[in-house]
């Protein structure tokens, strides 16, 4: 531990203040700031092992749920009278679309928390969720296109929901680009949080305007789901797949937040004493 050299410069009659080297325990540590500190600073340190225990649990849960979901979507769900086997794509398309929207809302929650309470952990959570959200948005578009081709003969259909999904992907890319462009982590977190909040306010407006735009130009002839009637088993399959995706998201996000914590707290004492770093 480097010796604490307090640099105390007293000039002029008035006694003056001292300054001490960072990183060492404060000589007098007033009680209240210790509590505030616990919540603000060391929460990444206590969160890190907690996340470490949760990741495998959710990973296993995800595997199980998706396994059951896949089995049901191929063997349990009946063949659709009109669309044959092609409709099974909705068992991936719809959960992915749900998750892409859901993750953005969770990011907005963490963003609001981060801006209000100024905690560092929430900024990390928002940043950890973004890539997974972007992947699900892309998957929703990809599977939507693959479903559109056999049904309507074209890869891309300017359907209201698909267009909104595309715009959601742009919002994700905007967030990721902004995070990439800012070096200072504090500013990146807070700027990213503000962008997500502005985005969340705009999503209903965008969705409504795209809906209006879609009905205005083509009328409601082509729409995604009025094709196959929603049988009970299909609904269950979709729910299970969605839960599987949800567990997958938590596992991935927690794993990513752990490596973000490591990156940001690289030079702190608690990281250097970590087991994984030692070996």
């Amino acid at each position, binding site marked *: 531990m480097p010796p604490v050299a307090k640099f105390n410069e007293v000039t002029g009659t008035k006694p003056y203040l001292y300054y001490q080297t960072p990183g060492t325990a404060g000589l007098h540590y007033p009680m209240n700031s210790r509590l505030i500190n616990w919540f603000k600073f060391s929460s990444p340190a206590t969160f890190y092992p907690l996340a470490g225990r949760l990741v495998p649990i959710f990973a296993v849960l995800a595997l199980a749920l998706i396994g059951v979901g896949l089995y049901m979507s191929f063997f349990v769900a009946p063949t659709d009278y009109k669309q044959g*086997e092609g409709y099974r794509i909705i068992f991936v398309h719809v959960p992915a679309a749900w998750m892409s929207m859901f993750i953005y809302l969770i990011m907005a929650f963490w963003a609001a928390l981060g801006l209000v309470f100024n905690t560092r952990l929430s900024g990390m959570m928002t940043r950890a969720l973004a890539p997974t959200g972007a992947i699900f948005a892309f*998957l929703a578009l*990809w599977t939507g296109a693959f479903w559109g081709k056999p049904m309507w003969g074209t890869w891309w259909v300017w359907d209201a929901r698909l267009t909104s999904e595309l715009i959601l992907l742009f919002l994700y890319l905007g967030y990721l680009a902004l995070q990439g462009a800012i070096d200072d982590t504090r500013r990146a977190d807070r700027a990213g949080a503000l962008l997500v909040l502005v985005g969340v306010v705009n999503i209903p407006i965008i969705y409504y305007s795209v809906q209006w735009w879609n009905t205005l130009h083509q009328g409601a002839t082509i729409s995604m789901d009025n094709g196959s009637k929603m049988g009970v088993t299909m609904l269950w399959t979709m729910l299970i797949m969605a839960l599987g995706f949800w567990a997958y998201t938590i596992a991935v996000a927690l794993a990513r937040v752990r*490596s973000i914590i490591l990156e940001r707290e690289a030079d702190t004492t608690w990281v250097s004493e970590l087991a994984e770093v030692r070996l």
Partner: protein
Amino acid sequence: MSVAEFLDMGGYALYVWGSFGVSALLMILEPIMLRNHRRAVLQRIARIIRIKAGEKV
């Protein structure tokens, strides 16, 4: 239902397996990239500690 029939997916093989395949691919790729990133971060921290330890000793 024979395997061939299953794979054919009633003629929609390309589309069904295209969607499921890419989804599976991405959802497997992401954890793998995460693990590599994590290992790289850990190695960097270990190196910092060794340098610091080296300097002090």
